[in-house]
C-alpha cells in the first residue's frame, strides 16, 4: 500500500490536492469557487494528508480490527460456537494459536482465534488487533495439527507485520484527500465533524480515537474491507509465509506441514493480487534452505525435534471423528 501512496503523491492527485490542515469544511461545502486558491497548493497538500500514515495506537487497532472481524464473521455465516463440542473445538484452536502468537514479535497482544461456519471456502483471514479467523472448510481439510498451526501462523504473521494496517492507513490518507476534494465541489463524503476530526489528527500525531468516532470507524472499516478484498500482493504473502514458518519452527512444528497446507489451497480467484500457490511453495522451499547460521552464532531457528502432531481428540471430533484425524509424524530434520 505504500507504493500506492507514492503513486498518488507522484500524480499530485490534482483534484484532491486541497490542504487537509486547518481548513474548516463547513466553509467549503457548496463554495467550490472560493476553494480555488487552495487547489493551487498541489503536491504540498498531499504531503500534509500523509501525516495520517502513522502507526495506530493499540486502541485504534483494536477498534478497526474488531469492526473488520465483525464483517468477516458475518460473511462466514457466524462463528461455529453454539454447542459444547463447538466451544471445545474453539478452545483447541485458540490454544494452538495462542501458543504460536506468544512466540511472535507481538507477544503482548491478546490474540483471538475464531472458526467460521463457512463449509465452502478453504480460507483463513486476519484483522488488526490479533483477530484470526479460519473457515470450517479449512479445518475439514487439514491433516494434522502442524497444518492447522501453519494456517494460524500465516494469519498471525499478517497481524505482526501489520499488513492490514497499511491498507487502513492508505484509506485514512485517501479520506483526508477525498473528503477535502469532494467538499470543495459540494459533495460531502464525510460529515463536517468527522472531516474536521481527520484534520485535527494531522496536528496530534495522526492517530484516531475510533471508539469515539463512529462515523470514521464505519467509513474507514468499509474502505479498508474493500481494499482487503483485493488481496495482499505477492510480496506481502511471501513475507507472511516466511514468518509463519519461523513461528512453526519456534513452536516445534515441522515446516513440511506448511508446504502440505499450501498444496491443499486452491488459487484464490476473487483476489486478483494473491500469488499462485506453486510460486509460494517454491519460494518457501528456497527460504528454508537459508535458515542455518554458523557454529559460533546463536541459532534462532530450531532444526531438530520438529513434529506434526495429530489433531487433538476429542476436541476435533465435531469436525472429524477420531478414527480419521490424521497420522502423527515425527519428522526430525
Amino acid at each position, binding site marked *: 500500500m505504500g507504493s500506492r501512496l507514492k503513486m498518488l503523491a507522484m500524480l499530485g492527485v490534482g483534484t484532491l490536492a486541497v490542504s487537509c490542515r486547518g481548513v474548516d469544511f463547513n466553509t467549503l461545502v457548496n463554495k467550490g469557487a472560493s476553494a480555488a486558491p487552495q487547489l493551487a497548493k498541489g503536491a504540498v497538500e498531499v504531503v500534509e494528508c500523509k501525516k495520517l500514515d502513522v502507526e495506530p495506537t493499540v486502541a485504534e487497532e483494536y477498534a478497526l480490527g474488531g469492526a473488520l472481524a*465483525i464483517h468477516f464473521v458475518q460473511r462466514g455465516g457466524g*462463528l461455529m460456537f453454539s454447542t459444547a463440542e463447538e466451544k471445545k473445538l474453539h478452545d483447541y484452536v485458540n490454544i494452538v494459536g495462542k501458543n504460536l502468537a*506468544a512466540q*511472535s514479535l507481538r507477544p503482548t497482544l491478546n490474540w483471538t482465534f475464531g472458526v467460521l461456519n463457512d463449509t465452502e471456502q478453504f480460507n483463513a483471514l486476519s484483522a488488526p488487533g490479533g483477530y484470526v479467523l479460519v473457515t470450517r472448510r479449512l479445518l475439514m481439510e487439514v491433516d494434522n495439527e502442524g497444518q492447522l498451526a501453519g494456517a494460524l501462523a500465516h494469519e498471525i504473521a499478517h497481524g505482526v507485520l501489520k499488513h492490514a494496517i497499511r491498507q487502513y492507513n492508505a484509506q485514512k490518507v485517501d479520506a483526508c484527500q477525498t473528503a477535502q476534494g469532494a467538499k470543495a465541489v459540494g459533495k460531502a463524503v464525510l460529515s463536517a465533524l468527522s472531516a474536521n476530526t481527520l484534520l485535527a489528527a494531522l496536528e496530534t500525531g495522526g492517530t484516531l480515537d475510533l471508539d469515539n468516532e463512529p462515523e470514521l*470507524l464505519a467509513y474507514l472499516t468499509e474502505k479498508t474491507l474493500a481494499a482487503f478484498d483485493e488481496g495482499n500482493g505477492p510480496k506481502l504473502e511471501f513475507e507472511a509465509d516466511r514468518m509463519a514458518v519461523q513461528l512453526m519452527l519456534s513452536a516445534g512444528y515441522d515446516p513440511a506441514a506448511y508446504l502440505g497446507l499450501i498444496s491443499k489451497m486452491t488459487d484464490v480467484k476473487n483476489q486478483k493480487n494473491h500469488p499462485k500457490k506453486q510460486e509460494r511453495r517454491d519460494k518457501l522451499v528456497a527460504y528454508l534452505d*537459508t535458515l542455518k547460521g554458523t557454529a559460533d*552464532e546463536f541459532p534462532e531457528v530450531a532444526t531438530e525435534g520438529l513434529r506434526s502432531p495429530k489433531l487433538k481428540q476429542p476436541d476435533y471430533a465435531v469436525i472429524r471423528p477420531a478414527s480419521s484425524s490424521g497420522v502423527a509424524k515425527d519428522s526430525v530434520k
Partner: protein
Amino acid sequence: MRMRTRAAVTAAVLALGLPGMAAAVRVNDPLYVKAKNTRVQQGPSSTADTVVILQPGEKVTWKGADPKNKQWHQVEAPGGKKGFVFQTNLSTTQPNMELVTDKDGTRQLDPKKFVASGAAVKALSPGAEAYGKGKKGDYEKAVADIKALEKRNEQLTPERIAAHVAEAGLFPVVGPSDKVASKKSSGKKGGN
C-alpha cells in the same frame, strides 16, 4: 537442509525484511525473551529446577549452547542469575512491547507486573461493538459471537497452553506459571 554461507543467509534475510533473523549474536551478546513465563532452568532440561522465570522483552546475556543438549542455552538473567533456557524462547530481536509502553514508547512498565495484572485481556472494543450492533441482523449476531468467544478465552491460561504443548511433544516455550514452583517444574504435564 543445505548449509549456505552466513553472508548469503544474512543477505537473504535482510532482503525479506524480516525482524528477528538479521542480527548475528555471539557469546556474551544480548538476547531477548519471547514468550510468557520463560523458565531459566538449573540444568539443560525442562524437568530441571527453575532458577527464575522471565517475561517477554526481558534481556539476557547469551553464554552459549550446552555441549550435549544443544537446544538448551546458558544465559545470564537480569540480576546475574545463571541458568539454561530453551533455544526458541530466545530471540535476537526485542519483541514489540506495545502494551507496556507509553504512547511515545519511552516508559516501560515491568513485564512481570504486566503479565500478573491481566492487562492483556481483550474484549471487543466499544466502538466496534456499537458499529456491529448498529448494522443489525447478522452483524449483531457476529458481535455476540465474538464477545462470547473472547469471554470463554479468558480461561485459556498459559498453564493450559503448556499442558497441550507437552502432550503434543512440541517445544516447551510458554511456561505454565509466572511463579517459580517450590518443587521441580513439570515440563511433561498431562492433557487439558
